[in-house]
């Protein structure tokens, strides 16, 4: 048995670090970070997490705030600070607000450097894909707070569906297998192994007594659906071979354990849904994730200046001055505070007078590389294959296929034909033209759905590390950098704050963006209270 890097697993089993690497491969850096916290590799962040941000009305006179970037953190800041009485203005470099919260529909422009695309999906409210965030876990209470407050209509997002496939070139001749089949057989064999080894021992070591021993054996039976003699002989959980409604169900023959172990599907398909961020039942706004952006924008009329590209950020003795390009002209504006959600790796290249250690951290954050490819299918062929929503997995570069959680039985649908967070894979996709990416997604998807090509009409792709004004997805912090420098980047320098999911322990999630903005705003409030006290003295 080997790891994904083909290193043999040691007799002692996985080290914590190895386990983390696997989780990281399966679920991205945010999951790895979270798991790392669970495993005690990293100290959990010390910052107290407020239930909800509550800013007191401003009482210290007119205060101005420049917010750089109209992503989720910027929108949250403008909305909350505005409500509290601050004069806010958002400067956004691109042609649209929302940042990585980007739902792509008919007519939308995808501003990828060197690979600009328009979306030609049919004009239909159901035909869209969420190129950035697509799902919200229940414990992301900060972003959900705004969905509730703004009345954003939500629906379930199915993140784990056992009827979907797992496909691995190394196993079963590359043939796709239903996740439920793989999972039932694997659990069956492991339970049998466990039950028999417990049975073979006269008694367990203290503190386990005979009753515990019996309970453990019963647990194994239930966990693996074992027969009365604790043998795994197949299970209904794998789906019947035939029958089951008007005739007796016929079980499928279990696959051999040795064959099951050829694939590392358990690193992805099987255990993915165990992560708290990746539960089977997540949520998403009806009609696209950008309904959240729309809800903010409708409450911020005239506050967002698009196509304003920041050229310079200068800390002043009091406040901050920001210079930016607008319509080919350089403009300058001063404010008491600046909330800056420009990706740190780009801010490092923008003229500034920041302290060396502060900008030094920005230089060390790595660009998150993440790609998605969306395909318009002229027919919802997956429904005929008994798949309604969920995710299939493959060992190929496309990594996953997502089936939409909405629009059942409609004529057409948008599939996510590839979703990769592996930097090497993302480099391969980013080096392709859009046409090549679509062709690759179709070719690889055909291993899961033989007639795939017949159904796919067109597609769009997004490589976040190549998107104009972003050049990266969630910031990549090394464990070391988090330990030494997170606090530096989170702390204000005068009236200047770096914000966004990049300044959270949860990069790549909207929750990180909201909470980072809340954290900065509470600090601004403290600064104002302090000024008030000084005046009083």
């Amino acid at each position, binding site marked *: 048995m080997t790891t994904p890097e083909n290193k043999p697993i040691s007799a002692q089993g996985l080290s914590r670090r190895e386990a983390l690497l696997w989780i990281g491969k399966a679920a991205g850096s945010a999951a790895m970070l979270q798991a790392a916290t669970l495993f005690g590799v990293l100290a959990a962040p010390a910052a107290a997490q407020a239930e909800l941000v509550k800013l007191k009305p401003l009482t210290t006179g007119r205060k101005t705030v420049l917010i750089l970037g109209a992503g989720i953190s910027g929108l949250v800041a403008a909305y909350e600070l505005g409500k509290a009485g601050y004069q806010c203005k958002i400067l956004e470099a691109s042609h649209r607000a929302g940042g990585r919260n980007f739902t792509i529909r008919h007519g939308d422009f995808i501003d990828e450097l060197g690979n600009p695309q328009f979306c030609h999906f049919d004009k239909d409210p159901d035909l869209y894909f969420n190129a950035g965030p697509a799902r919200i876990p229940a414990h992301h209470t900060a972003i959900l707070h705004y969905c509730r407050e703004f009345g954003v209509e939500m629906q379930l997002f199915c993140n784990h569906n056992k009827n979907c496939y797992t496909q691995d070139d190394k196993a079963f001749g590359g043939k796709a297998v239903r996740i439920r089949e793989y999972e039932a057989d694997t659990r069956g064999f492991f339970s049998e192994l466990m039950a028999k080894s417990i049975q073979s021992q006269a008694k367990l070591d203290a503190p386990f007594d005979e009753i515990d021993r019996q309970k453990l054996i019963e647990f194994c039976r239930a966990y693996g659906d074992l027969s009365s003699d604790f043998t795994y002989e197949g299970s209904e959980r794998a789906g019947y071979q035939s029958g089951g409604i008007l005739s007796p169900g016929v079980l499928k023959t279990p696959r051999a354990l040795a064959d099951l172990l050829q694939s590392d599907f358990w690193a992805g398909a099987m255990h993915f849904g165990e992560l708290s961020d990746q539960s089977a039942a997540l949520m998403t706004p009806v009609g696209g994730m950008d309904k959240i952006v729309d809800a903010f924008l409708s409450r911020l009329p005239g506050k967002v200046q698009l196509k304003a590209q920041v050229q310079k950020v200068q800390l002043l003795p009091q406040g901050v001055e920001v210079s930016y390009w607008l319509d*080919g002209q350089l403009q300058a504006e001063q404010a008491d505070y600046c909330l800056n959600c420009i990706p740190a790796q780009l801010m490092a290249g923008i003229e500034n007078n920041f302290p060396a250690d502060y900008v030094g951290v920005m230089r060390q954050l790595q660009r998150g590389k993440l790609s998605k490819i969306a395909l318009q299918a002229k027919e919802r062929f997956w429904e005929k294959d008994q798949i309604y929503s969920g995710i299939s997995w493959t060992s190929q570069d496309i990594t996953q296929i997502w089936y939409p959680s909405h629009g059942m039985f409609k004529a057409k649908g948008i599939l996510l034909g590839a979703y990769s967070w592996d930097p090497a894979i993302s480099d391969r996709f980013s080096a392709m033209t859009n046409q090549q990416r679509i062709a690759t997604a179709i070719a690889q998807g055909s291993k899961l759905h033989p007639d795939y090509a017949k159904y796919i009409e067109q597609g769009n792709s997004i490589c976040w590390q190549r998107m*104009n004004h972003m*050049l990266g997805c969630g910031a990549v912090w090394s464990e070391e950098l988090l330990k030494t420098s997170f606090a530096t980047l989170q702390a204000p320098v005068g009236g200047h704050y770096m914000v966004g999911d990049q300044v959270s322990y949860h990069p790549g999630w909207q929750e990180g963006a909201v909470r980072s903005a809340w954290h900065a705003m509470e600090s601004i409030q403290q600064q104002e209270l302090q000024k008030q006290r000084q005046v009083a003295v």
Partner: protein
Amino acid sequence: MKYWIFGCLLFAASLQAETFQQNAQYCLVCHGSKAQGNAAISAPNLAILPDWYLTAQLRAFQSDWRGHQTTDAYSKEMMAVAKSMSPEEIKRAIGFITSFQVSKAVETLDGNISHGKALFQTCAACHGASAEGNKSLGAPPLAGQYSWYLLRQLQAYRSGQRGNAEQDSKGALMKQIASSLNSEQDLNDIVAYINTLALPSTSVKN
């Protein structure tokens, strides 16, 4: 009816133009707000480069001389951008970039500077004694460029990932010279020496 359709077409055309960023500040997203480069995303200093060299390299990227046969993801990124640019956009971008004041990348590189200086004599024949560049030979200024960038390019020439295209005679020459260097340490020492040189004067740039 006809007018209505014409109106829609006009609107569609202006919408398309509106969403693209026509202006040259596009370059600054990656290469820094003063075109001084950005190490955080591996974008080299453009401000030290003269218009003729920028033109030649954009042409190299467009013609698959650069970025095509390479494992370097950053070159591929630039290749895609270059290929998406029209001649008019290239002209405008270069005009914009060369308007910035030259600034030097601040960094230090460990290496044997005196050994690098000795090796640099070969380089000086084309790139000039102060690495200020030579237009008539098509040799760009090197002084003020990031060390990691110079090293990566020397490695690309040595491995044949750059300077391999038949029509790219200047690249071929550079490939030959880079291949004659004995070791990675030699490359490092040369770059460490270049790193000590002052910026080329603006008169050279123009």
